[in-house]
């Protein structure tokens, strides 16, 4: 029996494939490459902050490097990371479908991603912009650095995201296996579904906004130019209308991964399936109503600020529901501490930490003190990196046997997981203290009193890189020497484990009929 990997092996069979698993795998390679590139820029930034004043680069270079780090990590890695890779690979399998609803569009979304990435990186090679990943006007529409290719590149990437989202929504609605009701679909699918709604409805607003900045910069149209009657704060409104929900594009799929990993390694059904599924949709919905909390200090009435602050805290309620439900799932479970679960524990710790500081910065009076300081940098790295990156690694470890058919050395995976935790924590925890002490974000230089904390932070970034190197090494090793995984190495009940690893071209040998729900661990296991 041939798997999706070896039923056809020509280069053309990969480049022209409409198999969602191959497309997911190509996305995996592409996003992993972007992660390493964005990570390399991060290492350079931390190195620069080893000492006050110039260490390895000048101020203009620093501005570009932090912009490129942000642009690559946000637009090229985090947004597509889990949905386009694991979502693509797993969503149809988990629904018992043979493919996504529109396979050719799915392939197109990969090439649109490549085109967007090429144009964005072209801008990087042509010396790079210095606007930050947020492209705030009026600076972005007047800077002499070549910002246009990056704006156009991100605009194009947006269409890849939208197409992926349309595909996932249509697939979930129309291609579920027979007898599979909405309350039978795996929680990861719920998370990806909620994410897709945001992708489809928020991304076009961003795309249009970036296009307008392009016109301002390139042709002096002046949508946001005060000299022509434009309003710079209006840009922030439309930008964050997308970019705040974008945070949930990053975190919701992560939450899906957490639900799957916890149920599998605790051998239990979720404490409340409905609570986890509904809170995903709740976050997606509320996420559209919180953008104003990025602008408390940009001039906003007290009433508006209060409303946006309160709405932001709703997200914390939904998130807390999830955390309690996950913890409740672990309680009295038969816990097997494997590396994916270790990453999930890291996630829980960092997410609660980042989430609570999020409630703190959503409080208007506190935000005035912390706005534009390292406190905010630390907060969103705890959520976004601590959230997306740790679960991306959890997902990579958890589904690696399914995707490649090989097992990896668990010991080394644990080493990497532990290094990730300590590396991450020592990189970003000092940044809370730096920000609270008054260190502004995006500054090239700093006062000498901050050096000790910067030193710890830079040291942490090296530990984090070590974790990456270990991961690359053991996963590479497993491709060649790893044991055959078999269909279900973790003994999971979720549907993707009921087909062979790696799965056949159309996911299942026969049209599957799932006779149990995906987390029925109290029943005897057996197909």
């Amino acid at each position, binding site marked *: 029996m041939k798997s999706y990997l070896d039923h056809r092996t020509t280069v053309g069979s990969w480049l022209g494939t409409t198999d969602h698993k191959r497309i997911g795998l190509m996305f995996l390679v592409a996003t992993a490459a972007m992660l390493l590139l964005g990570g390399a820029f991060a290492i350079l930034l931390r190195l620069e902050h080893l000492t006050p004043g110039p260490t390895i680069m000048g101020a203009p270079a620093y501005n570009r490097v932090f912009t490129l780090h942000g642009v690559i990590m946000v637009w090229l890695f985090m947004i597509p990371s889990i949905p386009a890779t694991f979502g693509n690979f797993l969503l149809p399998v988990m629904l018992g*479908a*043979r*493919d*996504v*609803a*529109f*396979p050719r569009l799915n392939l197109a979304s990969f090439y649109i991603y490549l085109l967007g990435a090429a144009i964005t990186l072209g801008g990087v090679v042509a010396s790079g912009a210095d606007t930050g990943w947020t492209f705030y006007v009026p600076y972005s529409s007047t800077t002499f650095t070549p910002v246009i290719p990056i704006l156009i590149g991100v605009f194009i990437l947006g269409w890849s995201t*939208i197409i992926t*989202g*349309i*595909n996932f*929504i*249509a*697939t979930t*609605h*129309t*291609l579920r296996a027979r007898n599979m009701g909405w309350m039978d679909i795996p929680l990861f699918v719920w998370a990806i579904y909620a994410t897709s709604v945001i992708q*489809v*409805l*928020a*991304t*076009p*607003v961003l*795309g*249009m*906004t970036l296009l*307008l900045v392009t*016109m301002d910069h390139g*042709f*002096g*149209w*002046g*949508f946001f130019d005060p000299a*022509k*009657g*434009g*309003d710079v704060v*209006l840009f922030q*409104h*439309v930008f964050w*209308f997308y970019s705040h929900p974008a945070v949930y594009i990053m975190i919701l799929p992560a939450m899906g991964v957490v639900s799957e990993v916890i149920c599998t390694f605790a051998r239990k059904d979720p404490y409340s399936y409905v609570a986890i599924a509904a809170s995903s949709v709740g976050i997606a919905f509320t996420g559209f109503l919180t953008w104003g909390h990025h602008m408390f200090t940009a001039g906003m009435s007290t009433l508006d600020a209060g409303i946006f602050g309160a709405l932001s805290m709703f997200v914390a309620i939904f998130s807390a529901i999830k955390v309690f439900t996950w913890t409740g799932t672990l309680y009295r479970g038969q816990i097997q501490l494997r590396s994916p679960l270790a990453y999930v524990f890291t996630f829980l710790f960092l997410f609660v930490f980042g989430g609570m500081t999020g409630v703190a910065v959503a409080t208007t009076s506190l935000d005035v003190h912390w706005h534009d300081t390292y406190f905010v940098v630390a907060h969103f790295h705890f959520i976004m990196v601590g959230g997306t990156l740790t679960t991306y690694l959890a997902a990579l470890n958890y589904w690696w046997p399914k995707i490649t058919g090989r097992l990896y050395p668990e010991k080394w995976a644990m080493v990497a997981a532990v290094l990730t935790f300590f590396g991450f924590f020592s990189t970003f925890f000092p940044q809370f203290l730096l920000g609270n002490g008054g260190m502004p974000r995006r500054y090239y230089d700093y006062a000498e009193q901050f050096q000790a904390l910067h030193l710890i932070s830079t040291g942490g970034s090296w530990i984090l890189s070590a974790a990456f190197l270990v991961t690359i090494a053991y996963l590479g090793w497993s491709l060649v020497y790893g044991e055959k995984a078999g269909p279900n190495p973790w003994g999971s009940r979720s549907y993707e484990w009921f087909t062979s690893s790696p799965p056949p071209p*159309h996911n299942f040998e026969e*049209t599957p009929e799932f006779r149990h729900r995906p987390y029925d661990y109290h029943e005897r296991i057996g197909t």
Partner: protein
Amino acid sequence: MYEPALEEHFDDFARQRHAARFGMWIFLASELLLFAALFVLYFGYRAHYPQVFSEGVGHNARAIGTLNTCILLLGSIAVALAVNELRRSRTRSAVLLLAATTLAAIAFLILKGSEYAAHLQEGIRPGGQGHFFLEHQEPGWPIFFTLYFAMTGLHAIHVAVGGVLLGGMTWWVARRRVGAAGAYRVEMGALYWHLVDLIWVFLWAMFYLMGGHG
């Protein structure tokens, strides 16, 4: 007669049709949000500069705008009927109706082009460039016309895409490449056209009706 085949990842034709329609609706929702960003800008700036926006509307040709609204709406009726006819295998009338919609797109673009030409003549260009703005120096004038060009321009691009799409479908149906069972594919084009139409109805109100001198 060629009919779309059942793709191998679908169990039956009903599901395939449902998926296509459903996907199209989601895409249209996405398109709507693309315009929404511009609508937010328009109303944000209108609140800033109510007087200028109201006067600005007077510089647009209300008659042509209204004529264009009629053209688009008639196109919408035609394409809706075309889908209906095709479902009943009345290919000839379907072809005629689709051709009518394609013509509507072309007529719209010609009229819109004539309006743009008149504006350029008047010295109105996007970004507050042109001699018109030497006489109209209050803040808000450049924004009004930049938004006018951007929003109607983006809409015109959509009309052009719709025209090409429906022109292609006319050809398709005329060559008997698609019949009753494939009518849902023509329906995709119709849905797209209705969206283009719907957005124009709002643009018509915003740039031709809300203000001016009458």
